[in-house]
Protein backbone atom coordinates (compact mmCIF):
# COMPACT_ATOMS: atom_id res chain seq x y z
CA UNK A 1 0.00 0.00 0.00
CA UNK A 2 1.30 3.46 -0.96
CA UNK A 3 2.09 6.06 1.72
CA UNK A 4 0.63 9.57 1.65
CA UNK A 5 4.00 10.84 0.43
CA UNK A 6 4.06 8.42 -2.47
CA UNK A 7 0.48 9.24 -3.45
CA UNK A 8 1.19 12.97 -3.20
CA UNK A 9 4.33 12.70 -5.36
CA UNK A 10 2.15 11.23 -8.08
CA UNK A 11 -0.30 14.16 -8.14
CA UNK A 12 2.29 16.95 -7.66
CA UNK A 13 3.83 16.70 -11.07
CA UNK A 14 5.73 19.98 -11.47
CA UNK A 15 8.00 22.32 -9.49
CA UNK A 16 7.83 26.12 -9.34
CA UNK A 17 11.43 27.33 -9.72
CA UNK A 18 10.42 30.99 -9.94
CA UNK A 19 9.72 31.44 -6.22
CA UNK A 20 13.18 30.41 -5.00
CA UNK A 21 14.91 32.46 -7.73
CA UNK A 22 12.85 35.52 -6.78
CA UNK A 23 13.61 35.02 -3.08
CA UNK A 24 17.35 34.78 -3.83
CA UNK A 25 17.12 38.03 -5.81
CA UNK A 26 15.16 39.81 -3.07
CA UNK A 27 17.52 38.68 -0.33
CA UNK A 28 20.53 39.88 -2.33
CA UNK A 29 18.84 43.26 -2.92
CA UNK A 30 17.04 43.60 0.42
CA UNK A 31 18.61 46.92 1.45
CA UNK A 32 17.41 48.96 -1.52
CA UNK A 33 14.13 47.05 -1.78
CA UNK A 34 13.31 48.16 1.79
CA UNK A 35 13.94 51.77 0.76
CA UNK A 36 11.80 51.38 -2.34
CA UNK A 37 9.03 49.91 -0.18
CA UNK A 38 9.15 52.86 2.23
CA UNK A 39 9.16 55.37 -0.62
CA UNK A 40 6.07 53.69 -2.11
CA UNK A 41 4.31 53.89 1.26
CA UNK A 42 5.10 57.63 1.52
CA UNK A 43 4.00 58.34 -2.03
CA UNK A 44 0.69 56.51 -1.58
CA UNK A 45 -0.02 58.36 1.67
CA UNK A 46 0.78 61.69 0.00
CA UNK A 47 -1.42 60.93 -3.01
CA UNK A 48 -4.35 60.15 -0.73
CA UNK A 49 -3.78 63.22 1.43
CA UNK A 50 -3.59 65.47 -1.62
CA UNK A 51 -6.52 63.74 -3.30
CA UNK A 52 -4.37 62.90 -6.32
CA UNK A 53 -4.58 59.83 -8.53
CA UNK A 54 -1.60 57.89 -9.84
CA UNK A 55 -2.58 59.22 -13.28
CA UNK A 56 -2.36 62.82 -11.97
CA UNK A 57 1.12 62.13 -10.64
CA UNK A 58 2.16 60.51 -13.92
CA UNK A 59 1.02 63.62 -15.82
CA UNK A 60 2.93 65.92 -13.49
CA UNK A 61 6.06 63.78 -13.69
CA UNK A 62 5.70 63.44 -17.43
CA UNK A 63 5.94 59.67 -17.24
CA UNK A 64 3.50 56.87 -18.05
CA UNK A 65 0.88 55.78 -15.48
CA UNK A 66 2.46 52.32 -15.71
CA UNK A 67 5.74 53.74 -14.39
CA UNK A 68 4.00 55.42 -11.45
CA UNK A 69 2.29 52.11 -10.76
CA UNK A 70 5.72 50.47 -10.63
CA UNK A 71 6.90 53.11 -8.15
CA UNK A 72 3.95 52.54 -5.80
CA UNK A 73 4.41 48.78 -5.88
CA UNK A 74 7.69 49.40 -4.01
CA UNK A 75 9.95 47.11 -6.00
CA UNK A 76 11.56 49.68 -8.30
CA UNK A 77 15.21 50.77 -8.11
CA UNK A 78 14.57 54.52 -8.37
CA UNK A 79 17.08 57.08 -9.57
CA UNK A 80 17.93 60.20 -7.58
CA UNK A 81 16.26 62.24 -10.32
CA UNK A 82 12.98 60.36 -9.86
CA UNK A 83 13.13 60.60 -6.06
CA UNK A 84 13.77 64.35 -6.24
CA UNK A 85 10.87 64.76 -8.66
CA UNK A 86 8.59 62.92 -6.25
CA UNK A 87 9.75 65.09 -3.35
CA UNK A 88 9.12 68.31 -5.24
CA UNK A 89 5.78 67.36 -6.74
CA UNK A 90 4.30 65.81 -3.61
CA UNK A 91 6.01 68.13 -1.10
CA UNK A 92 7.37 65.23 0.91
CA UNK A 93 10.84 64.45 2.20
CA UNK A 94 12.17 61.12 1.02
CA UNK A 95 15.90 61.61 1.37
CA UNK A 96 16.57 62.89 4.90
CA UNK A 97 19.73 64.69 3.75
CA UNK A 98 17.63 67.12 1.75
CA UNK A 99 16.77 69.02 4.91
CA UNK A 100 20.40 69.37 5.94
CA UNK A 101 21.23 70.60 2.47
CA UNK A 102 18.65 73.38 2.75
CA UNK A 103 20.07 74.52 6.10
CA UNK A 104 23.67 74.34 4.99
CA UNK A 105 23.02 76.41 1.90
CA UNK A 106 20.83 79.15 3.38
CA UNK A 107 21.94 79.23 7.03
CA UNK A 108 25.36 77.76 7.67
CA UNK A 109 25.48 76.23 11.15
CA UNK A 110 29.26 76.47 11.50
CA UNK A 111 31.45 79.49 10.88
CA UNK A 112 34.90 78.36 9.82
CA UNK A 113 36.52 81.59 11.00
CA UNK A 114 35.06 81.67 14.50
CA UNK A 115 35.62 79.07 17.21
CA UNK A 116 34.07 75.96 15.86
CA UNK A 117 31.36 74.61 18.10
CA UNK A 118 29.42 71.53 17.40
CA UNK A 119 25.94 72.36 16.12
CA UNK A 120 23.08 71.55 18.44
CA UNK A 121 21.85 68.64 16.39
CA UNK A 122 25.13 66.84 17.13
CA UNK A 123 25.55 67.68 20.83
CA UNK A 124 21.92 67.02 21.74
CA UNK A 125 20.42 63.59 21.40
CA UNK A 126 18.75 63.67 18.02
CA UNK A 127 16.31 60.97 18.95
CA UNK A 128 15.58 62.15 22.48
CA UNK A 129 14.71 59.23 24.71
CA UNK A 130 14.03 56.86 21.88
CA UNK A 131 15.95 53.61 22.06
Amino acid at each position, binding site marked *: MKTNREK*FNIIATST*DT*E*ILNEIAYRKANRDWLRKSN*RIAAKVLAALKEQNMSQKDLADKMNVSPQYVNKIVK*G*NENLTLATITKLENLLHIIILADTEKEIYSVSEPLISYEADVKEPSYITESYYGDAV
Partner: protein
Amino acid sequence: MKDITSVQFIIPNKLAAFIYKGDMDINILNILLSTWRSVDDLFQFYETNKRIIANSTISSIFYSWENFSEDIMLDLEQLEDFIDDVANGKVNLDNAFHPLSRKEENVKILSLRKHRCKWLRIYAIRIDENLYVITGGAIKITQKMQDHIDTRYELTQLDYSRQWLKDQGIETDESFYCYFDL
Protein backbone atom coordinates in the same frame (compact mmCIF):
# COMPACT_ATOMS: atom_id res chain seq x y z
CA MET B 1 -14.19 28.89 -2.98
CA LYS B 2 -11.90 28.04 -5.92
CA ASP B 3 -11.61 24.62 -7.53
CA ILE B 4 -8.21 22.95 -7.45
CA THR B 5 -6.71 22.28 -10.87
CA SER B 6 -3.32 20.83 -9.81
CA VAL B 7 -0.56 20.77 -7.20
CA GLN B 8 2.93 22.14 -7.67
CA PHE B 9 6.02 21.63 -5.54
CA ILE B 10 7.85 24.71 -4.29
CA ILE B 11 10.52 22.53 -2.70
CA PRO B 12 10.37 18.93 -3.93
CA ASN B 13 9.25 16.38 -1.37
CA LYS B 14 8.73 19.07 1.31
CA LEU B 15 6.57 22.02 0.38
CA ALA B 16 3.87 22.29 -2.29
CA ALA B 17 1.03 24.65 -3.13
CA PHE B 18 -2.30 24.25 -4.86
CA ILE B 19 -3.08 25.81 -8.22
CA TYR B 20 -6.67 27.01 -8.38
CA LYS B 21 -9.00 27.43 -11.32
CA GLY B 22 -8.78 30.91 -12.84
CA ASP B 23 -5.28 31.60 -11.51
CA MET B 24 -3.57 31.08 -14.88
CA ASP B 25 -1.53 28.10 -13.69
CA ILE B 26 0.18 30.13 -10.95
CA ASN B 27 0.28 28.43 -7.57
CA ILE B 28 -1.27 30.12 -4.54
CA LEU B 29 2.05 30.80 -2.74
CA ASN B 30 3.38 32.63 -5.78
CA ILE B 31 0.17 34.70 -5.94
CA LEU B 32 0.29 35.55 -2.22
CA LEU B 33 3.95 36.62 -2.37
CA SER B 34 3.26 38.86 -5.38
CA THR B 35 0.28 40.48 -3.64
CA TRP B 36 2.10 41.06 -0.35
CA ARG B 37 5.12 42.50 -2.18
CA SER B 38 2.96 45.18 -3.76
CA VAL B 39 2.76 48.22 -1.46
CA ASP B 40 -0.06 49.53 -3.64
CA ASP B 41 -2.17 46.41 -2.98
CA LEU B 42 -1.39 46.62 0.76
CA PHE B 43 -2.50 50.26 0.80
CA GLN B 44 -5.90 49.29 -0.68
CA PHE B 45 -6.22 46.57 1.98
CA TYR B 46 -5.24 49.03 4.73
CA GLU B 47 -7.73 51.65 3.57
CA THR B 48 -10.56 49.08 3.50
CA ASN B 49 -9.66 47.62 6.90
CA LYS B 50 -8.01 50.41 8.89
CA ARG B 51 -10.58 50.45 11.69
CA ILE B 52 -10.17 46.71 12.27
CA ILE B 53 -6.39 47.05 12.08
CA ALA B 54 -6.42 49.85 14.67
CA ASN B 55 -8.53 47.71 17.00
CA SER B 56 -6.12 44.81 16.59
CA THR B 57 -3.15 46.67 17.97
CA ILE B 58 -2.45 47.80 21.51
CA SER B 59 -1.21 51.26 20.56
CA SER B 60 -4.01 51.73 18.05
CA ILE B 61 -3.89 55.54 18.01
CA PHE B 62 -0.26 55.55 17.01
CA TYR B 63 -0.40 52.65 14.57
CA SER B 64 -0.25 54.27 11.15
CA TRP B 65 -0.25 53.12 7.55
CA GLU B 66 3.55 53.43 7.59
CA ASN B 67 3.74 51.13 10.66
CA PHE B 68 1.48 48.60 8.95
CA SER B 69 3.45 48.68 5.72
CA GLU B 70 6.73 48.28 7.63
CA ASP B 71 5.44 45.32 9.66
CA ILE B 72 4.16 43.53 6.56
CA MET B 73 7.53 44.09 4.88
CA LEU B 74 9.32 42.51 7.86
CA ASP B 75 6.84 39.61 7.94
CA LEU B 76 7.45 39.05 4.26
CA GLU B 77 11.23 39.05 4.69
CA GLN B 78 10.83 36.50 7.48
CA LEU B 79 8.63 34.36 5.25
CA GLU B 80 11.16 34.55 2.40
CA ASP B 81 13.98 33.57 4.79
CA PHE B 82 11.85 30.68 6.02
CA ILE B 83 11.24 29.33 2.49
CA ASP B 84 14.93 29.71 1.71
CA ASP B 85 15.85 27.83 4.91
CA VAL B 86 13.42 25.03 4.02
CA ALA B 87 15.03 24.77 0.57
CA ASN B 88 18.47 24.56 2.19
CA GLY B 89 17.38 21.88 4.65
CA LYS B 90 17.78 24.14 7.69
CA VAL B 91 14.17 23.85 8.85
CA ASN B 92 11.92 20.89 9.54
CA LEU B 93 8.41 21.90 8.51
CA ASP B 94 6.91 19.96 11.43
CA ASN B 95 8.61 22.47 13.75
CA ALA B 96 7.58 25.52 11.71
CA PHE B 97 3.89 24.84 11.02
CA HIS B 98 1.55 24.78 13.99
CA PRO B 99 -1.96 23.39 14.22
CA LEU B 100 -4.67 26.02 13.99
CA SER B 101 -6.18 26.09 17.41
CA ARG B 102 -8.01 28.11 19.99
CA LYS B 103 -4.59 29.31 21.07
CA GLU B 104 -4.19 31.10 17.75
CA GLU B 105 -7.61 32.64 18.07
CA ASN B 106 -7.30 33.81 21.64
CA VAL B 107 -3.93 35.52 21.61
CA LYS B 108 -3.53 39.20 20.93
CA ILE B 109 -2.23 39.73 17.45
CA LEU B 110 0.52 41.94 18.78
CA SER B 111 3.57 39.82 19.37
CA LEU B 112 5.05 41.18 22.57
CA ARG B 113 8.27 39.26 22.15
CA LYS B 114 8.99 40.83 18.79
CA HIS B 115 7.61 44.28 19.72
CA ARG B 116 5.74 44.48 16.47
CA CYS B 117 2.58 43.22 14.86
CA LYS B 118 2.74 40.05 12.84
CA TRP B 119 0.04 39.96 10.24
CA LEU B 120 0.85 37.40 7.56
CA ARG B 121 -0.39 33.82 7.73
CA ILE B 122 0.20 30.81 5.47
CA TYR B 123 -2.32 27.98 5.76
CA ALA B 124 -1.44 24.39 4.93
CA ILE B 125 -2.38 20.75 5.27
CA ARG B 126 0.12 18.19 6.53
CA ILE B 127 0.51 15.33 4.06
CA ASP B 128 3.27 13.40 5.78
CA GLU B 129 6.32 13.92 7.96
CA ASN B 130 7.98 17.20 6.87
CA LEU B 131 5.66 17.45 3.84
CA TYR B 132 2.95 20.14 3.60
CA VAL B 133 0.72 21.58 0.90
CA ILE B 134 -0.22 25.26 1.07
CA THR B 135 -3.90 26.00 0.56
CA GLY B 136 -3.73 29.79 0.94
CA GLY B 137 -2.82 32.67 3.17
CA ALA B 138 -4.10 35.94 4.55
CA ILE B 139 -3.35 39.15 6.38
CA LYS B 140 -4.91 38.16 9.68
CA ILE B 141 -6.34 41.23 11.38
CA THR B 142 -8.99 39.71 13.64
CA GLN B 143 -8.46 37.36 16.55
CA LYS B 144 -10.85 34.76 15.22
CA MET B 145 -10.59 33.59 11.64
CA GLN B 146 -14.38 33.57 11.39
CA ASP B 147 -14.48 37.32 12.05
CA HIS B 148 -13.06 38.49 8.73
CA ILE B 149 -14.15 37.61 5.21
CA ASP B 150 -10.59 36.79 4.06
CA THR B 151 -9.71 34.36 6.85
CA ARG B 152 -13.24 32.89 6.80
CA TYR B 153 -12.64 32.13 3.12
CA GLU B 154 -9.34 30.45 4.01
CA LEU B 155 -11.13 28.10 6.41
CA THR B 156 -13.54 27.10 3.64
CA GLN B 157 -10.62 26.56 1.27
CA LEU B 158 -8.85 24.38 3.87
CA ASP B 159 -11.97 22.21 4.26
CA TYR B 160 -12.42 21.90 0.50
CA SER B 161 -8.71 21.11 -0.05
CA ARG B 162 -8.72 18.35 2.57
CA GLN B 163 -11.74 16.78 0.89
CA TRP B 164 -10.02 17.05 -2.51
CA LEU B 165 -6.96 15.24 -1.14
CA LYS B 166 -9.23 12.59 0.35
CA ASP B 167 -10.78 12.10 -3.09
CA GLN B 168 -7.23 11.46 -4.40
CA GLY B 169 -6.77 8.78 -1.73
CA ILE B 170 -4.75 10.96 0.65
CA GLU B 171 -6.15 10.85 4.17
CA THR B 172 -4.76 13.65 6.37
CA ASP B 173 -5.12 14.31 10.08
CA GLU B 174 -7.90 16.48 11.46
CA SER B 175 -5.77 19.59 12.04
CA PHE B 176 -5.12 22.44 9.67
CA TYR B 177 -1.73 24.12 9.94
CA CYS B 178 -0.50 27.66 10.01
CA TYR B 179 2.86 29.36 9.59
CA PHE B 180 3.43 32.47 11.75
CA ASP B 181 1.38 31.03 14.58
CA LEU B 182 2.00 32.93 17.82
